[in-house]
């Protein structure tokens, strides 16, 4: 009993069960208390916008890589033209 009370995981499970949920691995989603959320500042917003723009760019770079791979594949598939016979050298 003593060890159970000190076991954080078990207490999370028990807390979920007391909400009627068997959710495992994490606590049942609840709204944080109003004091817990710091007001967003404009600089936070700009940083997040930049970070998200970087994420978008990463995706677009992957697109370019895929396109390059496709182009390489197409190039390999183009049948090589048979070489014209070499003109016979005068003997």
């Amino acid at each position: 009993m003593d060890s159970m009370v000190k076991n954080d995981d078990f207490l999370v499970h028990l807390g979920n069960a007391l909400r009627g949920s068997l959710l495992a691995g994490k606590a049942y989603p609840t709204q944080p208390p109003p004091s817990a959320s710091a007001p967003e500042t404009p600089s936070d917003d700009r940083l997040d916008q930049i970070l998200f723009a970087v994420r978008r760019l990463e995706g677009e770079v992957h697109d370019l890589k895929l396109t390059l791979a496709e182009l390489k594949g197409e190039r390999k598939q183009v049948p090589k033209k048979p070489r014209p016979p070499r003109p016979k050298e005068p003997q």
Partner: protein
Amino acid sequence: MNEAGPEQERDRERELEALLELSRRGRAKLERLHEVLTTPGHYGTGATPAAVVYRENKLKLLRLLDETGQPRDGRPPVLFVPAPVSRYFIMDLLPGRSFAGYVAAAGFDVYIADFGTPGREDRFADLEYYVEGLVRRCVRTVCALTGHEAINVVGYCLGGTLSLLYSALHPETVRRLVLLTTSVDGDVEGGIPWVAHRMGLAGEDYDNPRLVPAAEVKSWFEMLAPGSNSTLGRVSDLWDRLDDAPDRLREIRTMASWVDDVVAAPGRLLAELYRKLGPGANGLMKGTVTVGAQRVDFAEVAMPVLSVSAEKDTIAPAAGVDAVRSIVPHAEILRLPGGHVGIVAGRSAAALWKRTVEFLGGGVSTRET
């Protein structure tokens, strides 16, 4: 002092015995609960072994592996697209209870898009980011890995909406399309968009979006079944279920771990969905929906389509799902008994899995409605 007669004595003994029995049953239930809570379970990840074949932002594209740890490359690839506001593993819940695993066991090369949990910066993600970004790159990656020019796509709930939009914009890359409980008629009352509407989603700001907390997303789902989802109702329900065997309880726990583990949602995406597809706007039915600057034309959806609704779906009401026949007239409409989650991963989900495998394999339509 009155002495109790023999009959009263017997009554007292019976009452005492009944109380003791009640106490024994209560104790047995608590022991079962303790056993379930302290046994490591299967939750939070898919049941089938998988390899991550592509990562982008929080997204992971998973490729299911066979018993020997190798990808299957027999039948055409299938990409599962779950809803980005919930966890992906509903598609691959438990060994023997996995939709994706069943399709893979039928010989298909199966991929699942795990959208992950959005971070604060992802509140700027819009419809275009999901459709033309994440979903399109998943399809391209699968095509690049397998050499196929077109693949099968299975979209679930909001994942179905993304899949439908993608298929209209890039029909040449989709071989067959399965839409699971995907609502297309925003004017059909009920379901998440209406609850969200009632809860004030209309106020979600597209230009200055927030990351909508998981608890708030969860509250919309809870509003769909008021009472049954109240703490009191849920505790009472759980107490009744504690009569079940521990194995059954562990199954319930896995399902609960999906149902209760919603993720935060990008506010911009929700605002756009509401503004374009929600009540009144109804852009899918009216043919007015755009993704980025592109107008979506559902006449382009020429590949075979199977749309599946659930009779008791409170999240995506069946009428709103079956309305897909108005915008994709050749779509096969299948309505199954059960609810939004049950038809995909419940005990009777085999009906859906079997029909999906037939459909993906080019099987003849049963035209069940």
